[in-house]
């Protein structure tokens, strides 16, 4: 007789165990993120249960402090600037790498995605050495260029995969009807790769917004970013303002995820 392995009491317990462990893993993944949210609205100074009275005090402290609000605004300024740069540079490079039979193409590709693989500390230390001799440490342009370098790989990969789905015949058709290369790029290529540009840009933005290791090496007192401020504060003393700062970062990350989901559905 052939046993059906998907039926019977043993399989039932097996399935129950599997789905239970699935939920447990999910709880493990979400708990350290979700624990921050209720505590950020509690007036207990000790950042632990039981929850105290509801308060917005830690948010008021966050937005009243030039140090924290400044870090938030600075993070945005750096993320927006480096995203624009990364989308332009990465998008152009991805278009360039489409040309077949380019000697050294593989090498260029590897170089352009290298920041994804090289440990952040090594990138940070190396840039620190170079920036120190060039006088670029503690400057806004220096930090923006560093973040751009870290963000370019995401644009190259995303635009590259969007271009992979682009039909070469459409470009030939445009050219055969007398379109100039510039017109073909604007009317055919760009609309078709725009999903890749958008998702690459979102990844680039998220990368810059979360970056902390390289920033620790390069940023001066005027380039505080939110994750850097959180890192130094968490290392010195666990202040409850960290709760509101963390919640704000979680909210932004969730918004980015929602935006990218709704854009990819279109």
């Amino acid at each position, binding site marked *: 007789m052939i046993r059906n392995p998907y039926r019977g009491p043993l399989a039932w317990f097996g399935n129950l165990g599997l789905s239970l462990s699935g939920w447990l893993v999910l709880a493990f993944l979400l708990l350290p993120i979700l*624990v921050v949210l209720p505590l950020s609205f509690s007036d207990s100074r000790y950042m632990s249960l039981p929850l105290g009275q509801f308060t917005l005090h830690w948010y008021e402290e966050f937005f009243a402090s030039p140090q924290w609000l400044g870090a938030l605004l600075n993070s945005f300024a750096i993320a927006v600037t480096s995203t624009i740069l990364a989308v332009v540079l990465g998008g152009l490079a991805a278009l360039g790498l489409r040309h077949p039979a380019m000697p050294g193409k593989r090498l260029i590709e590897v170089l352009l995605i290298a920041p994804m693989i090289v440990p952040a500390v090594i990138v940070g230390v190396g840039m620190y*050495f170079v920036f120190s001799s060039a006088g670029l440490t503690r400057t806004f342009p220096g930090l923006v260029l560093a973040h751009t370098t870290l963000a370019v790989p995401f644009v190259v990969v995303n635009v590259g995969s969007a271009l992979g789905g682009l039909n070469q015949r459409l470009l030939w058709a445009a050219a055969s009807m007398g379109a100039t290369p510039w017109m073909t790029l604007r009317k055919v290529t760009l609309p078709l790769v725009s999903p890749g540009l958008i998702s690459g840009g979102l990844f680039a933005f998220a990368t810059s917004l979360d970056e902390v290791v390289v920033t620790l090496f390069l940023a001066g007192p005027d380039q505080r970013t939110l994750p850097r401020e959180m890192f130094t504060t968490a290392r010195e003393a666990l202040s409850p303002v960290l709760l509101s700062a963390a919640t704000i970062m979680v909210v932004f990350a969730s918004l980015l995820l929602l935006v990218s989901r709704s854009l990819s559905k279109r």
Partner: protein
Amino acid sequence: MSRGYLLSLPALLLFTGLLILPLGLTLVLSFNVFDYQVGVKAHEWTLAHYLALFSDAYFYEIFWRTFWISALVTLLCVVIGVPEAYILSRMGTPWRSIFLILILTPLLISVVVRAFGWSLLLGADGLVNQLIQVLGGRPVKLLYTPFAVIIALVHVMLPFMVFPLLAAMAGCNRLLVQAAYSMGARPLRVFFQVYLPQVLPGLAAGALMVFIVTLGFYITPALLGGPADQMISFYIAQFTTGTLNWGLASALGLVLLVATTLLYLIQSHLARRGSEGVNR
């Protein structure tokens, strides 16, 4: 063809200045004589930094600690990730995408925020210790221990394990599994002899990726570990901005870079084999 180079030129210029030059300078500095009074002596060459790394027991301990923490994190990610990916691969449509988003979400949240969340859970009067006390136990020191570092690293790395595994499991031929059952094979034998070999390249690629990324971690151990639980990146940073021995920092950085690159070459080879396995 030449237009290809022209279009990638701006990015290449940036990468020459901000990636190749920094790594090159790191290489040069690692061979330069370093003097605590004068700093780097640009034209005097030495192997002293590397000799120090490979002869001093202090560095052996750092290498060993970095290795065992990464290995243990990888092992835990495999043990947790395989059943999780298996459940996901068998889930129905609405739940599957909900679970996938929820597993993806932590990836988008800064490691600083996640480390802070763990410090809230594991602190002296954190949620975990409160639970232990409710159950009648005595509070345990969890924060600033290797335990805190490892659990938080598993938390960061688990999605990196689950996604390649999911791809491998999706490419797995279920007919082979049913065929094995129909010929009377026991479930465990089917799992180890029919199912696992098909998933193994994806599993190996994911595990190696977890190991590689964990080797270079800085933030999580710095926030959750004690002074004796720090990994190699911490010392690279410390020698660079703390004790200002740039030569030693560079040599240590290059050791990490070479290890990472070699492992990555193996990893991409495995990953390619994993995706070919589908069509075999």
